[in-house]
């Protein structure tokens, strides 16, 4: 047992924090919310130059060959600084799915381009009418026609589909014996004829899109994993996504605590810094405690995932716990800042809104708790 960051991880943390503070100040994060693309291609290239997209991609595919846990260290720094853009959906959703389930050809084609910042990927799972991340919601049809599958249907809340080059899309290829059976995954060229994309206005302006597929032809060789057996791959993507989102969230929690403590030391009322009042001190102490517990729960889940240990329960616990507590900590942060905290120009609201967005991604609290309920042995 050694529950500290390795020297390498510490360096990554520090350098990522420094880079993001300089290159993506919060004013920039807010600007990007109003931006049509929702990310900065210039910054994206600089990040690629640092090797971030390839951090956990094997060296043979031009990556750095570091671990999933290392990647979560970077994601925490990104969450701490609210970096908008397609990093997580490209790297966690895209690259890892291909590393785990891709053919040699798919790997050779896509992984180096991801590592070099040349390809943006995302995952298309949810559909209108489905509110949770289970297999029953997958109804988009894929029908075999010659060398292609033809996809028809609609996906919603597809992250950064407006700028994506490829989407990993879950489609139904047969009516199976269960909801999980008969789902196949396809690597779809996001610019293929028949695809139309519209950004859904959301609380964090994070470019979640509605994507319509009208007879979109996808070459058979672009199937990811086996025919009809795509659901376990999607589950694996969702599990990693849940950890990644939780890692970003604990970064945001720490930023919210830091901001609030700094403000309360600085803001003077009744002739003293308001941070001297115990009514506020104890709230901040609780914010810090909850951030601590959240972090180590997430670190443990990330470590297990990274080690390849079964951790569906631990991940669901981390996501459920962080969902609730990121919202709570940011709500307290806005409150303790008073009027200024509620303004568009202030950073606390940025985190507060992100906490809501993070909550629904990869399964909300009720969804995660039901997973936990099963794992702790409650019969269903």
């Amino acid at each position, binding site marked *: *047992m*050694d*529950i*500290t*960051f*390795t020297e390498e*991880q510490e360096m990554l943390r520090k350098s990522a924090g420094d880079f993001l503070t300089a290159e993506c100040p919060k004013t920039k994060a807010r600007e990007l919310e109003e931006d049509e693309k929702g990310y900065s291609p210039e910054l994206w290239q600089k990040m690629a130059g640092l090797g971030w997209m390839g951090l956990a991609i094997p060296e043979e595919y031009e990556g750095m060959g570091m671990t999933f*846990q290392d990647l979560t260290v970077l994601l925490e720094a990104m969450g701490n600084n609210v970096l908008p853009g397609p990093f997580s959906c490209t790297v966690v959703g895209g690259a890892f799915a291909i590393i785990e389930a891709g053919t040699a050809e798919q790997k050779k084609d896509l992984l180096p381009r991801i590592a070099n910042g040349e390809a943006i990927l995302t995952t298309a799972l949810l559909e209108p009418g489905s509110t949770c991340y289970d297999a029953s919601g997958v109804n988009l049809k894929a029908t075999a026609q010659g060398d292609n599958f033809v996809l028809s249907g609609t996906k919603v809340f597809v992250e950064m589909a407006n700028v994506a080059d490829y989407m990993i899309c879950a489609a139904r290829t047969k009516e199976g014996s269960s909801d999980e059976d008969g789902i196949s995954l396809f690597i779809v060229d996001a610019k293929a004829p028949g695809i139309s994309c519209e950004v859904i206005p959301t609380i964090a302006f994070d470019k979640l899109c509605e994507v319509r597929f009208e007879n979109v032809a996808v070459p058979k060789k672009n199937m990811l994993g086996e025919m009809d057996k795509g659901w376990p791959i999607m589950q694996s993507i969702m599990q990693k996504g849940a950890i990644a989102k939780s890692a970003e969230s604990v970064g945001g929690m720490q930023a919210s*605590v830091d901001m609030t*403590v700094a403000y*309360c*030391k600085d803001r003077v009322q009744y002739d*003293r*810094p308001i*941070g*001297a*009042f*115990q009514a506020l*001190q*104890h709230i*901040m*102490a*609780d914010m*810090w*405690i909850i951030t*601590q*517990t*959240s972090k*180590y*729960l997430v*670190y*443990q889940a990330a*470590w*297990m995932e990274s*080690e390849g240990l079964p951790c569906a329960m*631990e991940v669901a*616990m981390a996501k*459920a*716990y962080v969902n609730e507590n990121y919202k709570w900590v940011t709500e307290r942060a806005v409150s303790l800042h008073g009027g200024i905290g509620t303004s568009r120009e202030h950073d606390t609201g940025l985190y507060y809104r992100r906490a809501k967005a993070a909550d629904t991604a990869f399964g909300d609290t*009720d969804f*995660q*708790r*039901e997973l*936990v*309920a099963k794992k*702790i*042995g*409650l*019969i*269903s």
Partner: protein
Amino acid sequence: MDFKLTDEHVKLRKEFFNVCEELAKKRPEGFTGLEGCYDTDEGWAYHLDCAKVFAKRGWLTLGWPEEYGGQGTIMDKVFMSEATGYYDVPGVDIFGVDMLAPTLHATASQEIKREFLPSIASGERMWCELWSEPNAGSDLAALSTSAVRQGDEYVINGQKIWSTGAHRAHWAFALVRTDPNADRKQKGITFLLFDMKTPGVTVNPILYMDGGHLYNEVFLDDVRVPVKNVVGEENQGWGVTQTLAAFERSNLGAIMGMHRQIEELVNYCNETKVKGEPLAKNPLIRSRLAKAACDLWAAHALAYRIVDAQSRNEMAAFDASAVKVFSGELQARMAQLGTEILGPYGQVKHSRWALFEGFFEKWYQQSFILNVAMGTNEIQRNIISWYGLGLPRMK
């Protein structure tokens, strides 16, 4: 970052669990927690019996220096508290083994150590703490029990309160004021040891809200204590109390106890049918138990981080405050959840109507022990605010 226990640790941990599992079979009915040790004669006898079993294995001296019969590291101590916590087994005197022994190792003279450590190691002498006073609780340094030196003795007069188990303990470690004129209240306090049978010591019960006898008030009237029983230096007792670094602070005992509670509630919900359906299928129950499990695993992850930090001497006091506050308050919520899941039976005391021998009814009340003792959780939040977050102290 690596959460993995070594194979050797896994094996060792298992041994602690095996022994405690056996001891748990001899548990008097309705026994639980600290009140279980001190309230009834059966509970006290069970506490002493378990202590003997542990002593034989050298488990009351975990982490001690070898010359005093010590073995193992803080990790052993952690596994031990996990095992006793999970099985709700007593035998480790929190005052003698957990508090006094590390304090003596850190601050006491050879003579004191040679005289007092062996009977802690053998589990024969049980201790109590005489610190709080009616007007010195959270503000402990305001204590006023006086000790006036007369030759080779101190003559002690005053009143102590909230003294857990003082009616059963053999010996006491006390804080007394030896210099009433010191310029700071923390100065002029002395830490000393005496036999609870010393003439002038009167112990009166303060019953807990559930009627159990856990706490006492202790009157000290011309109690004569040899000067050689001082730990550290005269007037330097406050410093002696601050040697917390050596204490095991993870709260993993309480945390493992809650793991057991969740397991039992899960079993209960699986087996109990309401209108022909297991309680476990009720979505509200599922959600609430799952939430409790998430909170518990969060506490557990942080506790391991505290252990890890402590084992490399990198733990700050406010780190330990975080896990104390969180796990203590979680125990209160867990007890509430337990009583609520049991419906009207949640309020039933140990009796033929009771479920789990009245465990949750008892902890609905006893969880305050975790949150008031050893520095209230409000004081812990001050510690975090001032020393962890650097917030200003109101003058």
